[in-house]
């Protein structure tokens, strides 16, 4: 193969030296691409050139031929860099593949669709800033009487956050339901505190929606306060909570809170990536977020969540710095 390449190079070179046509230069360009594909290093390329000169031309001054030996030495460094580059490309492909597998695995940790129930309308959207998300959410249907909802923001992004997410998911799967929100957080805190790096932490809001009584009981571990929308007054109340983020101290008790929903009222939970989204260099903030939420809240919950996200995404010039998750629980006007 190499011998054939060498011959082709020699033929192309001599024909160019004879005729000096533009299309021969173009052919040389094409050939160099092919040489790259065949992994011919630059020093070898120069040696093809010298061999061709010696064979095809007469009276090449010795100094010119000697200078090529010099050039070959010079090219060796480039050859090494080229091979390193090739290796890196190969490794990058391997990593890409591994990340792709991890992204797929992470998707399986999140529920496909929010629960559907005639007594409550649930919508959710969760979009990672990069390929892997540090936001985790989950719903549990407790026999159609209550629905558990969890939203968690794991510090950092990417692979470390994703690994931590699987721990949260499996820890939650081990708990018994239905259970008090404060108890769920207390148990999760113990698991996280024992198992994470000292500078890692997780925020979480956990709530239980009682479909019969339309009461939402919740507790939070350092999570961005959610919103309670009261349709009659057309206003929002902040779901202020006290509670330390998960993973910092052992034996933490979490306070439980509750709100009662009238028809049309809604609970909006979100990760801080939403309100800290930068719009024209400024944070979106809670007030502007409320305005956007109010604009879309008349829609079915899933559609509303998607529209709210879309509007923020557009305002942020299609650039997300942090993962974004929005969950809406709305009491239907006829339930």
């Amino acid at each position, binding site marked *: 193969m190499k011998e054939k390449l060498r011959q082709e190079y020699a033929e192309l070179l001599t024909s160019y030296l004879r005729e000096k046509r533009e299309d021969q230069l173009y052919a040389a360009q094409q050939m160099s691409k092919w040489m790259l594909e065949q992994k011919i290093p630059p020093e070898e390329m120069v040696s093809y050139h010298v061999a061709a000169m010696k064979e095809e031309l007469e009276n090449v001054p010795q100094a010119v031929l000697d200078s090529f030996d010099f050039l070959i030495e010079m090219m060796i460094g480039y050859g090494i860099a080229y091979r390193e580059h090739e290796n890196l490309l190969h490794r990058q492909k391997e990593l890409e593949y591994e990340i792709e597998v991890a992204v797929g695995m992470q998707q399986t940790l999140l529920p496909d669709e929010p629960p559907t129930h005639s007594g409550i309308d649930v919508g959710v959207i969760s979009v990672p800033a990069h390929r892997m998300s540090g936001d985790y959410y989950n719903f549990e249907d407790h026999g159609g009487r209550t629905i558990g909802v969890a939203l968690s923001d794991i510090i950092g992004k990417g692979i470390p956050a994703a690994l931590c997410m699987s721990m949260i998911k499996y820890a939650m799967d081990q708990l018994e339901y239905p259970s008090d929100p404060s108890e769920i957080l207390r148990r999760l805190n113990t698991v996280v505190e024992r198992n994470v790096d*000292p500078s890692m932490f997780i925020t979480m809001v956990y709530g239980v929606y009682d479909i019969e009584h339309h009461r939402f009981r919740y507790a939070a571990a350092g999570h961005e306060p959610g919103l309670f929308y009261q349709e009659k007054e057309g206003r929002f109340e902040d779901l202020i909570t006290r509670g*330390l983020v998960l993973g*910092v101290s052992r034996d933490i008790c979490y306070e439980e809170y509750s709100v009662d929903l009238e028809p049309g009222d809604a609970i909006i939970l979100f990760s801080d990536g939403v309100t800290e989204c930068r719009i024209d260099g400024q944070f979106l903030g809670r007030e502007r977020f409320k305005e956007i939420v109010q604009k879309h809240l008349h829609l079915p919950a899933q559609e509303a969540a998607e529209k709210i996200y879309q509007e923020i995404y557009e305002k942020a010039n299609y650039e997300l710095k942090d993962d974004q998750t929005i969950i809406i629980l709305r009491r239907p006007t006829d339930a």
Partner: protein
Amino acid sequence: MNVSIQEKSDSDKVKTLIVEGEVDAFTAPQLREKLMPLCKDSREVYLDVSKVDYMDSTGLGVLIGAYKSLRANQGRLILVGVSPRLSRLLKITGLAEIIDIEDGA
């Protein structure tokens, strides 16, 4: 986006770090590198954040790491000059209740 960190030794057991700039995922490792060794053998570590324009959750993670390390030796982490934004973040995360906060001098 940069961070600059200056160390001031008040005594063997009391150390002060003055942080200036933004503490985010890119700069937090620099803060961790300077802060963690101080926490190993000090009684009190003052972290002056009055010139910090922005701190994200990665920065909070560094504070938590420092707090835990000091707590293990009955030491204290004291934040000085906390901005309203950072103060809100510390309140929401519940950290304001475990980390000491002093007004800026």
